[in-house]
């Protein structure tokens, strides 16, 4: 059993969050394109290892496409529309690495593991508990969102771009109101379940999750340090 725990095959959410904080500077400073590209590749590697290869491929490809499109447009004569596209694209492109790590955290962290990790970090429960609920609730909202959309489509109220622009308020009403009423119900069930499992207690909870740092955490923190230095000083 002990040997198994040593070989835990993914980093803990704490080191993932630390990595995310370390690379946030990529949005602000004038970071060299090569550094951003390395960061995108590294985050892609993380997604391949711990999440899904298709997700990783999607982000890396998007980045490459945006980068090359920008440079192609720059070769063309200076039309202001092109300039505008270049600016917007070069800003949005910088979000991609953070987005990738955020996706890794949201998709691979279970609420139980998250709560156990945050408890170890002595994070007050007023933050960790709502956040864990958010993690748990995202997939539910997404599911509801899709079923509401198909129900709307059946009645001929599609969520096409034209519809949103033409009747913004109506669209909002038709989507948010059903979403809210179904979420509230799920929410009440969720609170009952959570309280039954002792989440409302004052005392610390015990957990079956192994949240000790493993080799992956040390590697990830090393990477965080390297990228932080690269982003800030190079």
């Amino acid at each position, binding site marked *: 059993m002990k040997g198994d725990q040593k070989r835990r095959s993914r980093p803990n959410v704490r080191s993932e969050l630390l990595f995310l904080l370390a690379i946030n500077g990529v*949005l602000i400073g004038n970071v060299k394109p090569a550094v951003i590209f390395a960061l995108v590749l590294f985050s892609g590697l993380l997604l391949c290892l711990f999440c899904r290869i298709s997700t990783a491929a999607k982000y890396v490809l998007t980045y490459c496409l945006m980068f090359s499109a920008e440079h192609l447009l720059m070769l063309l004569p200076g039309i*202001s529309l092109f300039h*505008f596209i270049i600016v*917007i694209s070069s800003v949005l492109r910088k979000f991609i690495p*953070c987005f990738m790590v955020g996706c890794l955290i949201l998709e691979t962290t279970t609420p139980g593991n998250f709560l156990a990790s945050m408890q170890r970090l002595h994070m007050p429960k007023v933050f960790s508990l709502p956040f864990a*609920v958010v993690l748990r609730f995202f997939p539910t909202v997404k599911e509801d969102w899709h079923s509401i959309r198909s129900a709307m489509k059946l009645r001929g109220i599609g969520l096409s771009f034209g519809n949103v622009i033409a009747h913004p308020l109506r669209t909002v009403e038709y989507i948010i109101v059903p*979403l809210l009423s179904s979420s509230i119900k799920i929410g009440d069930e969720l*609170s009952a379940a959570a309280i039954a499992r002792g989440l409302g207690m004052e005392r610390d909870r015990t957990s079956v999750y192994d949240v000790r740092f493993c080799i992956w955490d040390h590697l990830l923190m090393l990477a965080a340090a390297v990228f932080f230095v690269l982003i800030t000083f190079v």
Partner: protein
Amino acid sequence: MKEKLNGKDLINIGIFSAIYFVIVFITAMLGMVPILYPMLTVICPLVGGVVYMLFLTRVKKFGMIWIMSILMGILMLISGMSWYALAIGVFSGLIADLIFKSGNYGSSVKGVLSHAVFSLWIFGNYLLFYLNHESYMKTREEMVGKEYVDKLNSLLPMWSWVVLLAATLIFGLIGGMMGKSMLKKHLSKAGIA
């Protein structure tokens, strides 16, 4: 803080934060269309209003709005929007909470006001663009030339942050009022609000 927040309150915060964030985030995808990007300060408070007003019907203790505001900041940080929304959200959330508290957690006028202040975290995301304006422009100038930088400046000049800030507050008010009436129209009847 007279009463401590219990497990149910914290779970409510989580649920509403998730719904609010998803809805605002999907709306913010409209910002991928360049011309709509500054318009998000108008659209997001309008859309988020109804969720926020429903959240307020669950708020009876100090701290719930504040925590939700901080959570929004953290979620923005995670989704790669930098830490400005968090920095703003810590303060605007506290003020929004105090405003709603001053109405004894039941006044709808105070609720609408508090939504306007709460919405400021959306504005916070734009600070990334303004606060790093100069260094940003300089690198662009080296890359694509001065003429282009001038064009960009004319599209989003430095002073435009005042407009965006005002838009967030005003449409926060309108969004709050719309949210209130939407609650009355649909959800009160179902016994949810």
